[in-house]
């Protein structure tokens, strides 16, 4: 079947249009369908980036369908004090401008992070040596406490006593470091 518009290319799109109860069959090629506006095609292929920035607009379906400069966008737009990136700019680009952005947009951030990271919002991995301060020790403490709990549940009291001693030692170390910081 040839395209009913250009009569050159084969018709690859077949539409049934119902206007005022009257049925009409349309057989066109992709090009003519685009020209006639039967479909709106995205500019380029849908990339992962589109998908992401799409996800960021979770809270404002109205903004998408409304006119370009909706007042909603400006009313409570957050701005990063360090790099001056606004939250709506971030939503468009999908990229932060600096470390402070995470603080500046923190009220809006968790839903986004949850979407991207399967519901997670808290880091559970490596801690930098320098900036971490006594975070390392605190994480170690948490690990010990979990160990202790399991050991007690398993009634492995001898081992539990050892872990308890380790906790005591670590606790002293943390106190000492914190006291040192205050000076």
């Amino acid at each position, binding site marked *: 079947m040839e395209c009913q518009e250009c009569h050159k290319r084969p018709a690859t799109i077949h539409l049934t249009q119902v206007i005022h109860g009257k049925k009409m069959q349309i057989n066109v090629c992709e090009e003519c369908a685009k020209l006639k506006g039967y479909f709106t095609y995205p500019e380029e292929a849908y990339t992962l980036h589109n998908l992401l920035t799409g996800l960021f607009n979770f809270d404002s379906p109205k903004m998408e369908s409304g006119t370009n400069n909706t007042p909603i966008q400006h009313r409570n737009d957050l701005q990063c004090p360090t790099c001056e990136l606004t939250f709506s700019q971030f939503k468009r680009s999908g990229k932060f*401008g600096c*470390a402070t952005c*995470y603080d500046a947009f923190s009220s809006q951030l968790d839903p986004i992070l949850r979407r991207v990271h399967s519901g*997670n919002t808290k880091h*559970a991995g490596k801690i930098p040596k320098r900036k971490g301060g006594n975070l390392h020790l605190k994480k170690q403490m948490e690990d010990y406490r979990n160990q202790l709990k399991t050991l007690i549940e398993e009634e492995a009291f001898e081992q539990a006593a050892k872990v308890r001693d380790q906790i005591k030692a670590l606790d002293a170390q943390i106190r000492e470091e914190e006291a040192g910081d205050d000076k």
Partner: protein
Amino acid sequence: MTLKDFMNEAISPWMRENGPDSDIVLSSRIRLARNFADAVFPTVATEEELEEIKAFFKSSYDQQSFDDYQDLEFISIQDLSTIERRVLVEKHLISPLLAKNTQAGATLISSNEQVSVMVNEEDHIRIQLYYPGLQLAKALKKAFAFDDWLETKVNYAFDETKGYLTSCPTNVGTGMRASVMMHLPALALTKQLNRMIPAINQLGLVVRGIYGEGSEALGNLFQISNQITLGKSEEDIISDLQGVVQQLIEHERHARERLMQQSPTKLADRIYRSLGVLEYSRIMESKEAANCLSDVRLGIDLDMIKNISCTILHELMVLTQPGFLQHYAQKALTANERDVLRATLIRERLQLEK
């Protein structure tokens, strides 16, 4: 440049070593994204700000050594020709994005090319570390040590709850992307892989082609990597990935056995035809080359082809990329010229094996 020298350039020294499961897993990679705490990210930084970071890297790390990595070399992207930049991308030492970022981009590469640092890509720092075969845990340990070493001179952007802060929210937390490059010809041939990909995705892992996001799976080479970087420790992410990769290895081996049992002649025909095409063609497109190389590598793994080294797939896949061909020719080439040179190079390379 002789063909031998040139080939030595195409294959990074670390690739010559064999790793565990290297009949199916070509390499394991760990990438860590890091940023300076007190500088805006490259996505919004001015040229001066980026220059400062570049200069800091040059003065702090150029010609330094860490552990097994001797003589880290600092390379400014703007000092490279377009072809040289492409060559680094094709060797997976830098990303296409960094290659485009000529003004401020730089890289730090160890002499064995096992570790490289991209400076001023999307993040200030991106550490990349490779191991041959399936060695994720070893690669992670090494990457952590290297990260600690870099950190002695840098204050990283880090938040107690959000982890390492990155310019894209998809990397925040560990900033880690672990990936494994696999050769899966039997799963692809028997069309089983397409059915497995959705299940793999459900586990928070992604399957991609050899040259990253959106690239085609040339030569039946697939990259499996983690998508999630927040809420799980690096060790957990890696053990999830390792688990899936091990299953894929088993399925691939099983599929190979079944092909050998059910249609040995058909399989042998395919493999030897591809070898013939590689040995005698005069014009070869990259897709055809990749498919034939994949078949030949399968033939080597199945002991059908005996006197060709197994690095040939990886080696010639890299060697016959457009950037490398032009590097060899020492000039820009049209697509047709490249197809002719590609066929010539492959023929000559196979001659060397005899």
